[in-house]
């Protein structure tokens, strides 16, 4: 039995028309693609459409994928482009409201030490501040930290040069820090 094929092997097979190989590629990247589209559109339904359409378009453009290149930025660029088109054609963007998972929210029934409760409250508050940032700041912070995209992937997702990611991120962090200080949270 062979081991799990590498991304490179899957892309080579998909480029030769192997649809099963491409299905496996989608399975590997659907989480990050869908969440990236969600951060851009603010709507799970739009993100689903954008991710699906993006993967189909990427398949049709497989000939342009260079052997040895990183697949994530290439796929994310296509999906994110699709997500932006959708957000634009809808005329308005949904306000993105990221939330903490149930088990991490403060005041839950689960018994937690006081320290954990404080941490949960802190995280809820911090996420609230991220949600309140301008769209540009929220997108770059969400991409880099909440989606854990690399600099190259963030550039692909936002459709900006990689060199711009660093400066945009640094300005967004400075503004978030201002809000934290302004909020005087303990």
């Amino acid at each position, binding site marked *: 039995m062979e081991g799990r094929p590498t991304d490179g092997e899957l892309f080579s097979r998909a480029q030769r028309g192997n649809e099963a190989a491409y299905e496996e590629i989608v399975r590997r990247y659907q989480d990050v693609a869908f969440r990236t589209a969600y951060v851009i559109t603010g709507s799970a339904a739009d993100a689903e459409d954008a*991710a699906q359409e993006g993967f189909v378009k990427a398949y049709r453009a497989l000939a342009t994928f260079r052997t040895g290149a990183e697949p994530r930025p290439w796929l994310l660029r296509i999906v994110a482009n699709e997500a932006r088109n959708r957000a634009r054609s809808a005329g308005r963007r949904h306000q993105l409201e990221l939330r903490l998972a149930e088990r991490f929210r403060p005041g839950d029934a689960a018994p937690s030490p006081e320290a954990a409760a404080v941490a949960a409250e802190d995280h809820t508050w911090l996420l609230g501040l991220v949600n309140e940032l301008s769209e540009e700041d929220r997108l770059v912070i969400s991409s880099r930290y909440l989606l854990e995209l690399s600099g190259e992937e963030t550039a692909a997702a936002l459709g900006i040069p990689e060199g711009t990611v660093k400066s945009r991120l640094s300005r967004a962090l400075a503004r978030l820090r201002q809000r934290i200080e302004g909020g005087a949270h303990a």
Partner: protein
Amino acid sequence: MPEAADLEQRLVLLQAEIDWPATPALAARVRARIAAPAPAPRPWFQNRWAMAAAAVLVVLAALVAYTPSRDAIASWINLHTIFTRVNQLPTPSPLPSGPLGKRLGLGDPTTLERAQSKVSWHILVPASLGRPDEVYLQLPPQGPPKGEVTLVYKSRPGLKTAGETGVAVLVTEASGTVDTQMFGKLLGNSTTLEEVTVNGHKGYWIAGQPHIFFFIDANGQFRDETLRLATNTLLIDYDGTVIRIEGDLTNAQALEIAASLS
């Protein structure tokens, strides 16, 4: 006061706690979609057009039936360009400000030598205009599958600066398989389209009323940020590489530039 690293660390910690919507099972659905035959040549154009009209255009163009001959359609496909006749040309939104490459959607600035190392075809330069003042390269996915190179001639003796581009001549080159579409054009009733031959290569001379021009990317998507008015343009098919010469030129000037390509 939180230090930079501390804030970044706190954001990273948040990542594991986000309540993301459940990822839909896309793999099987995408597989079903790609197993179906690819869509007919350009059905997207109507949809894209509708989207562009809503997003970009001030006046909605009334598309009219245009019935070219089968031969003409074949030529156009070889020229990687979609032509559409409209009764009334839409008004494109103002071009973005900034450097030329960004304003006209030409891609990244580069040099002739660097561009040549990135594309598969031999970049043709019009000897009559000399070395270009600027060179831009647009690679996929923004550009067509094999990339696209634009040579910029800011001013040349005897040539006017075109109001649509702010430069004297733009020479855009791109290569692709026969069914790849790279450019789109909307022609008004007062725009003329004339078949020409340059050094044995077939081409079209588009003149008169400025027409609408836009780029199409590697995914077949019309890049709406590149939708703009274009002045007189000569399109030539050089054995699979399509050359687009745009400027406030007379037919004779454009043909002379094209004839000097080497």
